[in-house]
């Protein structure tokens, strides 16, 4: 009997050993093969648990588990990343662009197809975030984080809690409204108010949205992006649109701030891991992507980043500090009332940016400038004539 138990235990142990070695990085042969290699990861700034604030340093952990070194660099915007990639000045193995940029990269044939046989953890991704419009067959991208835009307001300074984007057109808040300083996000708000699609290709729709923004311009305190943090935390503005995850860090510094998903709907973004063409080490890149989807790793990362995770094990983990947080994980009704940015064709982009330029230029009376400028020119001409006159006088003297 004793013998049987020990044999059973042995079998059990070896079985558990086998399940443990199922992960590619625990197999010694894999490790030997990839140890000393490195991958280049190109991500947004402060967008990975890096060991600060008591988190796990995920890149170091990846190296520890696989022996692959991570060469990690940052970018500030999708556009920066795109420019760098397009210029061909550097090669990357993993990049993490947003939805519309993924679509553009796919359209321009700049991404490698991911071998999903190597992404064994892909089943952890919530079905909601699979096969999205930017990658309909889900061959090129693996969702990393999800975020939504909402309306942040200062509960002590509003007359009543807003529930609609139209609060940003309310004259009583004139001079206390902050607005996105980039065309796509700013137009999105106007499009929600008007009930238009964010991805419309019709120039007339953009014209309507532009008129709405122009109408709003006199009420705007400033067009800003990350200054929103400072201004909202210091009670310098009452209303501002921003991302849910960032609202939580503002709320830490100013308890009067509240957040609402406006009833007209809002847009959400998905940042997804992709492998660009020209990768030097596709297998290692796929291992990195798979590693990011490990339940414990994804949890560490979600705790650090504060945006919503597309990972079901994280979402449903009661130990997660944002478990069922209504701001980060809103109810199904809010989630249903959302749109995602798609890549716009060049002509539509042109229409949008021309309107944005006009918005930045319009709405002011330039007469004063013209008058002053005219006066300055006349002054300069007078000065020149006077100098010439004086010169001639000296010449004759």
């Amino acid at each position: 009997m004793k013998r049987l138990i020990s044999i059973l235990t042995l079998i059990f142990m070896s079985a558990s050993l086998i399940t443990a070695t199922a992960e590619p990085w625990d197999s010694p042969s894999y490790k030997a093969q990839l140890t000393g290699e490195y991958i280049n990861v190109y991500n947004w700034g402060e967008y990975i648990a890096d060991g600060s604030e008591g988190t796990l340093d995920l890149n170091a952990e990846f190296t520890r588990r696989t022996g692959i070194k991570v060469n990690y660099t940052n970018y500030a915007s999708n556009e920066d990343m795109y420019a760098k990639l397009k210029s061909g000045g550097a090669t990357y193995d993993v990049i993490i662009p947003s939805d519309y940029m993924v679509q553009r990269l796919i359209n321009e044939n700049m991404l490698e197809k991911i071998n999903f046989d190597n992404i064994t953890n892909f089943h952890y991704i919530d079905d909601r975030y699979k096969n999205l419009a930017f990658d309909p067959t889900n061959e090129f991208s693996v969702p990393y984080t999800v975020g939504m835009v909402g309306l942040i307001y200062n509960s002590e300074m509003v007359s009543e809690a807003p529930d609609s984007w139209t609060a940003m057109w309310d004259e009583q808040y004139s001079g206390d409204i902050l607005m996105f300083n980039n065309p796509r996000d700013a137009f999105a708000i106007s499009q929600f108010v008007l009930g238009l699609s964010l991805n419309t290709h019709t120039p007339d729709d953009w014209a309507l949205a532009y008129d709405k923004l122009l109408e709003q311009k006199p009420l705007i305190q400033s067009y800003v992006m990350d200054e929103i943090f400072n201004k909202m935390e210091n009670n310098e503005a009452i209303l501002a649109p921003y991302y849910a995850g960032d609202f939580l860090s503002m709320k830490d510094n100013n308890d009067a701030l509240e957040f609402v998903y406006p009833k007209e709907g809002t847009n959400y973004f998905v940042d997804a891991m992709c492998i660009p063409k020209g990768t030097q080490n596709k297998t290692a890149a796929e291992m990195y992507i798979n590693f990011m989807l490990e339940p414990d790793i994804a949890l560490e990362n979600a705790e650090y980043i504060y945006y919503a995770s597309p990972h079901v094990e994280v979402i449903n983990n009661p130990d997660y500090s944002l478990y069922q947080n209504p701001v980060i994980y809103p109810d199904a009704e809010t989630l249903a009332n959302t749109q995602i940015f798609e890549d716009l064709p060049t002509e539509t982009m042109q229409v949008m940016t021309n309107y944005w330029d006009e918005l930045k230029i319009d709405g002011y009376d330039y007469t004063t400038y013209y008058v002053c400028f005219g006066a300055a020119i006349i002054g300069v001409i007078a000065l020149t004539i006077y100098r010439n006159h004086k010169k001639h006088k000296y010449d004759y003297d």
Partner: protein
Amino acid sequence: MKKSSSLWARLCAAPYIVWMIIFIAAPLLMVAYYAFTDAAGNFTLKNIVALDGYAGIFIRSIWYGIITTIISLIIAFPFAYAISQKSTKYQSTMIMLLMVPMWMNFLIRTYSWMNILSDNGIINTALKAIGFAPIEMINTPGAVILGMVYNFMPYMVLPIYSVISKMDRNIIEAAQDLGCNKLKVITRVVLPMSVPGIVSGITMVFVPSVSTFYISQKLGGGKYDLIGDTIERQFQTSYNYNLGASISLVLMILLLVCMAFMNTFTSDDEEGGIVI
């Protein structure tokens, strides 16, 4: 005077010439190329024609540039003159103090101004504490001009100071002997003799303030964008390199005209000015 340059001298100059061709001439040619082509690379004047929509911004940028230059000159000339009258040690300390803030990045300095000028910033908090009504400073044209004066004024002080400090003291004494009072010494002797410094100072303040960006976005709240911001937007968010290039090209031509005009104030034999 002119010597025919030896082979050795030419070899020494070669790296600089190559450098200038690659990093100055080639980019300028690319700007011109983009300005006159469309996205597909075909010749077009569309980008230049489209500029009439940006006339207001051009005028505003130039006007702000003029204001900035005038304010800088009004502050910088007396300052440069005053320090040049002090002992050498005092002079070097003052110039040092002028330079120290420039060791910091101008983005950081501009960001600090945001905190100083904002509605709940240092100035307004102080005003409220002593019972005055707060003043609206941030997000106004005044804030933009303040930011530009603050950032670019040292470029006005330095050339003026270098001209005044090199001035022959005997000339000033001669003027005094011939009956000039202090004011007349300045207006009749120091001021005319420092014209080369003033001209290069004006150029060095006017050019960057017309083409500046960021300051106007941060201190003007994105509502008083200048031509620099517009150019930046064409490249960063609109991907309209062609329009961006044509705005840049026209801006460069305008600035060249301005500088050519300023240079008529300095005759060739005068020294101390910076030839641009």
